[in-house]
């Protein structure tokens, strides 16, 4: 198990080949004084030129948790195991996976295969577990409105952690649990958060005050999303994907959303 100690940590997930948002996120984290940056997985998917994001992350020496997409690409599985249940969502997921697999260099795929499923972070002494979906399953969705407090407390108890950071859903949220514990879904930097804002989201986790839960600073990152949408179109990726990048509204992968999260979006 990789262990990292820090006081102020930028944590982002769901890069989805969005190399422009990734560069902007790393610049933002440095400017915001983060002393570490950690990625919660899913480097590929959805966006164009998947090797570019891999190269940026590897050259920066950033610690990466293995997401379900990284696991599938690394092991040459036939699909991404994103966990979709709807035929339309699965059709888009299959298009995206075929594109990404074909354009991810074998050396990057081999690197993805060996990524760790979790990282332990000591946030000024506060034991924090970082994983992609949930501590027990890389493709488990932890949505804000479909996850009870009791379940989150159980996940923390069984993980021997006071804080837990996940991604996978693409929608950011956090919940404080007594005593002094916290769960954070950092969202995704690869596509916007389905709220009509094309900027992407990540979190800076900060050391807890005496007896309190670790703090969260939400960071909204603007980047040249029009340039990314142009690259996606040039690569022949679905127009629906480019629309999401430009408008901030999800157009696909919607059928796994719970009632509340689905009701907030345009589609």
């Amino acid at each position, binding site marked *: 198990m990789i262990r990292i100690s820090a006081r102020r940590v930028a944590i982002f997930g769901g890069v989805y080949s969005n190399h422009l948002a990734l560069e902007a996120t790393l610049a933002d984290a440095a400017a915001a004084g983060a002393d570490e940056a950690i990625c919660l997985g899913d480097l590929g998917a959805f966006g164009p030129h998947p090797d570019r994001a891999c190269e940026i992350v590897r050259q920066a020496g950033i610690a990466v948790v293995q997401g379900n997409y990284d696991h*599938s690409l690394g092991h*040459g*599985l*036939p*699909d991404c*195991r*994103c*966990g*979709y*249940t*709807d*035929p339309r969502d*699965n059709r888009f*997921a*299959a298009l995206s*996976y*075929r594109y990404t*697999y074909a354009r991810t260099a074998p050396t990057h795929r081999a690197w993805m295969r060996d990524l760790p499923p979790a990282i332990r972070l000591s946030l000024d002494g506060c034991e924090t577990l970082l994983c992609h979906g949930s*501590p*027990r*399953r890389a*493709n*488990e*969705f932890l*949505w*804000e*409105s*479909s*996850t*009870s*407090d*009791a*379940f989150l*407390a*159980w*996940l923390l*108890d*069984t*993980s021997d952690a006071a804080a837990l950071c996940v991604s996978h859903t693409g929608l950011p949220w956090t919940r404080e649990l007594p005593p002094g514990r916290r769960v954070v879904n950092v969202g995704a930097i690869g596509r916007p958060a389905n709220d009509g804002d094309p900027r992407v989201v990540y979190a800076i986790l900060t050391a807890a005050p005496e007896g309190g839960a670790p703090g969260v600073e939400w960071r909204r990152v603007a980047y040249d999303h029009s340039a990314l949408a142009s690259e996606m179109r040039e690569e022949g990726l679905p127009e629906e994907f480019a629309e999401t990048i430009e408008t901030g509204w999800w157009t696909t992968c*919607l*059928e*796994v*959303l*719970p*009632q*509340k*999260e*689905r*009701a907030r979006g345009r*589609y």
Partner: protein
Amino acid sequence: MSLEHSRPRARSHPDPTAPPILEPGHLDALWLQVTGTLCNLRCGHCFISCGPDNRALGLLSIEDVRRRLEESVGLGVREYYVTGGEPFLHPGIVDILTLALSYGPTTVLTNGTLLKPRHVELLAAAAAGRFSLEFRISIDGPDPASNDGLRGEGSFERAMEGFDLLVSFGFLPIVTVVRTWETEADPEVYRRIVAMLRERGCEKPRVKTMPALRIGAEAQRSGGYAADERVVSGMLDDYDLDQLVCAHARVVTDHGIWVCPILLDAPDGNLGDDLTVAARAPFALSHAACHTCWLHGAICSNPGVVAPETPFATAGAAT
């Protein structure tokens, strides 16, 4: 308990024709059988033969519900499913759903025919909190011709009136359809149901297709299971056990805790009255309906709760 110890496990039997035994994992979902086997409809494909005169299982009181919800907190339950029978036959259904929502995300499985504006108005207010209230409305096709033969004359229109009412209050019901057609027709049936929901003004149609469970009334209708449609030892090797409902769920009834929402007619499905014990009780997958659950996976939970093991029909992307 560690995370590793909270995973479901399968014990094979030395006899290859014997059913494997499932040792459940963490209790994710608590089902509340609030109206037992009592239903206003008498569907031809019901897997428990619920109906207006089936009182094999009775109503849960709100005190029963409250006690089980309190117990569930210590067990780390993630979400609640409220079912029957028809839950809206329960005189306290609004209070039950409101109470469950104060503990966590709640789904109610209804035929939609008894929803009243006053119910829905109160539930919309209750659902304004942190957790999603999901409605699953059962119909069996995109029109009365495909639905009413199974569910009763006029039931399609009544269910869709309930659907419209929910949509008018901002709910996005998940229309749940039991597959009573050949699997090959799935895309066409799905397309027609989505089109029908859009025509009714629902901008975000949600549809869940479920396989038929050939027990109860459905066994009479379709002939039940063949003798070799059973889960036997070895079939759980390299199988994703999270797909099995009984690996992560239990059902509260007025006659005790049941192993899953499907086997309510099976005497060995009753695991006693102690939820903590029942949540950890091993179960032999000896029933024919277990084969359907094994084959399709995650048949009872909402879309997105359990990731399907092999979602794409078009495999081979990596070759």
